[in-house]
């Protein structure tokens, strides 16, 4: 808790600085000012808060490294892994967790350094804050263009906030690429993309059975494809026909009820669909299979695909509906005038005009289905079967990512890196689908005036 004390100080000083600076300009002002008194207040606050916060943040990032370096400098010649292990045990001992064989001298040193760091940080942050305040205070005069200064600072803050979107993308790509690169140093990309055997279990002991993992991802991709195809066979017709009915036939009042109802399907958490698929649909399908003389696995691709199809109905229907309603009435009226029925008009006029948008909607739905995790984690299997039989268990990219990374693992094992390689593949495939979908919509859409 003590380490948050400087932040509290910063906040209090900042509030104080606002009122102090505002009062200063209020006392000095005779002529019209280049800013409201509040702007001068904010000016003081900025000088008090921003440098001190930066110092606090930098300190928080680097002090651990420095302390670690000092503590471990007593132990020259350790490898990285040994050093990490030693430091963790020293840290635990310092936190009061009983551990054996920890050099007490280092534990004491660590405690001392941590106390020193906390105290020094408090002193430095407070000092910077006070200095910043006086720096700003001295500059507050009626000539100061406070409004411009404060607004420039605000715009810089806005710009930094909007950069975070780029940083997130960079973070995703970097973290995936780095791990994937390390993975491909151990397993060749050729084996990963074209190998037919997927069994990522790495032996815990040398002599264990099936010690060598196999990282051929084709069965995983095939499983994803199978489940996606099943899902689209459900969502495609149902979604498209619902959209047609809602856009072309339904009474506005019916539409106002049905459209939100369909969209509820997209708002239900996927874990709930997973529960339904795994505990309601799959058992009853297996029983049905027994009655019909079919062997349906209790983790069949069919159950997962059906439920996923239901989930993505709204992704197909909403966008298709929007596209069809934006087809101008005059096109339909022209068709009616030639004697066509409503369905003929839809099939020959509205649908062709809306095709780019509908294709886009389908692609977005496919990308949703590929990236969906919880339904398949709960309802599809773990075994990587290379099969096109929907009654068998298959596995998907997302299932493998989730199972490879859940629980405590060594972060350097091939298993975890394989998950990142799968993640990178998933990221690029969904990205490509989305970009292409957007392009299709933009490029081939008819323009009506």
């Amino acid at each position, binding site marked *: 808790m003590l380490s948050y004390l400087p932040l509290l100080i910063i906040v209090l000083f900042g509030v104080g600085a606002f009122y102090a600076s505002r009062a200063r300009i209020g006392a000095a002002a005779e002529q019209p000012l280049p800013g409201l008194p509040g702007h001068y207040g904010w000016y003081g606050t900025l000088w008090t808060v921003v440098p001190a916060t930066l110092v606090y943040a930098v300190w928080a990032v680097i002090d651990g490294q420095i302390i670690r370096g000092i503590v471990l400098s007593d132990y020259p010649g350790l490898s990285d892994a040994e050093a990490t292990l030693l430091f963790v045990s020293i840290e635990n001992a310092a936190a009061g967790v009983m551990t054996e064989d920890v050099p007490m001298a280092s534990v004491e040193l660590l405690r001392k350094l941590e106390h020193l760091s906390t105290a020094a940080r408090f002193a430095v942050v407070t000092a910077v804050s006070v200095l910043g305040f006086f720096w700003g205070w001295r500059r507050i005069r009626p000539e100061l263009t406070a*409004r411009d200064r404060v607004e420039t600072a*605000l*715009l810089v803050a*806005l710009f930094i*906030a*909007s950069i*975070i*979107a780029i940083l*997130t*993308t960079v*973070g*995703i790509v970097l*973290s*995936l690429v780095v791990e994937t690169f390390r993975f491909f140093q151990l397993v060749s990309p050729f084996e990963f993309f074209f190998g037919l055997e997927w069994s990522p279990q790495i032996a815990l002991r040398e002599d264990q059975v099936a010690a060598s993992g196999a990282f051929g991802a084709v069965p995983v991709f095939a499983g994803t494809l199978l489940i996606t195809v099943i899902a689209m066979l459900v969502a495609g*017709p*149902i979604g*498209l*026909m*619902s959209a047609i*009915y809602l856009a072309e036939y339904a009474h506005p009042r019916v539409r106002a009820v049905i459209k939100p*109802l*369909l969209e509820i*399907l997209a*708002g239900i*958490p*996927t*874990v*709930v669909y*997973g*529960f*339904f698929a795994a*505990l*309601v649909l799959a058992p009853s399908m297996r029983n049905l299979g027994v009655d019909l003389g079919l062997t349906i696995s209790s983790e069949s691709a069919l159950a997962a695909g059906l439920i996923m199809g239901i989930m993505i109905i709204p992704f197909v*229907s909403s966008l298709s509906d929007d596209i069809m309603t934006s087809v101008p009435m005059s096109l339909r009226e022209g068709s009616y005038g030639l004697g066509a*029925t*409503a*369905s*003929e008009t*839809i*099939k020959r006029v509205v649908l062709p005009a809306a095709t780019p948008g509908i294709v886009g909607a389908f692609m977005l739905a496919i990308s949703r289905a*590929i*990236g*969906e*995790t*919880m339904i398949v*984690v*709960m309802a599809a299997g773990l075994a990587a079967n290379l099969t096109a039989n929907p009654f068998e268990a298959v596995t998907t990219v*997302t299932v493998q*990512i*989730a199972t490879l*990374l*859940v629980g405590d693992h060594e*972060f350097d094992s091939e298993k975890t890196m394989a*998950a990142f390689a799968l*993640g990178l593949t*998933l*990221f690029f495939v*969904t*990205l490509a689908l*989305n970009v292409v979908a957007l392009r299709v919509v933009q490029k081939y859409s008819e323009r009506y005036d």
Partner: protein
Amino acid sequence: MTSTALSTISSQAAANRLLLRRKRAERRFQLYGILAISAAVGFLIVFLASIVSRGYMGFVQTEVQLTVNFDAELIEAGSYRTILRTSLAELFPDAGSSRAERRALAGMVSAGTVFVLRETVEADPAIAGTVQDVWVLASDPVDQFYKGRIDAALPEGERPISDASLARIAALEEAGRIALRFNRSFFSRGDSRNPEEAGILGAIVGSALALLVTLVVSFPIGVMTAVYLEAFAPRNRITRLIEININNLAAVPSIVFGLLGLAVFLNVFGLPRSAPVSGGLVLSLMTLPTIIISSRAAIRAVPPSFAEAAMGLGASRVQAIFHHVLPVAAPGTLTGAIIGMAQALGETAPLLMMGMVAFVVEVPGGFTDPSTVLPAQVYLWADSPERGFAEKTAAAIIVLLGFLLVMNGLAVYLRRKFEKQW
């Protein structure tokens, strides 16, 4: 002339037939549409009905009334197990005192009863030395049987409850010592290995903490980004890059955000695993695009004349936007934030990676305590083999859907109330 008339008649008939066929095709096409919608809505109804029918019993719990002799000496010695055993033996005097019989008796009530008795005494020490009637939780098999989920007609070996226990339940029922009561422990406890004791308070608190982090991080950043892009950003390459990035992030599968969180937040920044702060950060990156996109729409919907009027009176552009445009756009941004939070509440996949799908008994007390979230609790319970957990899972889903309903309802209400056409 006759042939022309004939051919007119026959072509008339052909036209009629064609017309009939076209009308049938028309009706068929409409029917397909109705069928598609009925399929989707029908599924929704079946789906919700099946969850409610499985889950509503999770809100009640079978309890058994014991007459407990809080013997002062035994309390002093801490032998609550003996106290419980004595009161069970008094309740069923016909049971023998063999080890197996004693275990069967203890199996009638929840395994946590001993601790409940101790807590009762600790809460009220004056109870020592008195005899009290105490309602305690029944064990999972008894609970499931009493709720009618176990078929007594099955042979004894095929059901999880013995004939002797059935007879005891019947005796309890006759004495009015067994009843279904509102399941308080479901809303006041964390997870447990015993289904009858498992509760969702821990998961609810975990979700609330994670969502608080998400809101605090993503709402200001999202609104600031939206304001920048809509009102201040110059049309240049960086702005375009930011816009493309936001749209792409909205389409990235959630599990990829989990990979990012694992690699960056946990392994590089060293944030704690399983903690609401790390989970909340990942969720905020996920909800950021939602908030940005809806806030931008809200800001764009404010007519430019608002800002122009303010600037005409001498306000700077910043003042015009922050004092006059943003307040008008506030309901829209708020709606976006609520929808984003609702998405974050239902999200599980990235939290799998952050270690938030974990067995956590303690209700978390802070942002760095190990905790789980509501959907993760659903996932965990759905995997548990005990019968009682199936019911608990469905009950937890009902609670989760309830929260989502409230949040989305609030968003719709805000939109309706403040939606204006300028």
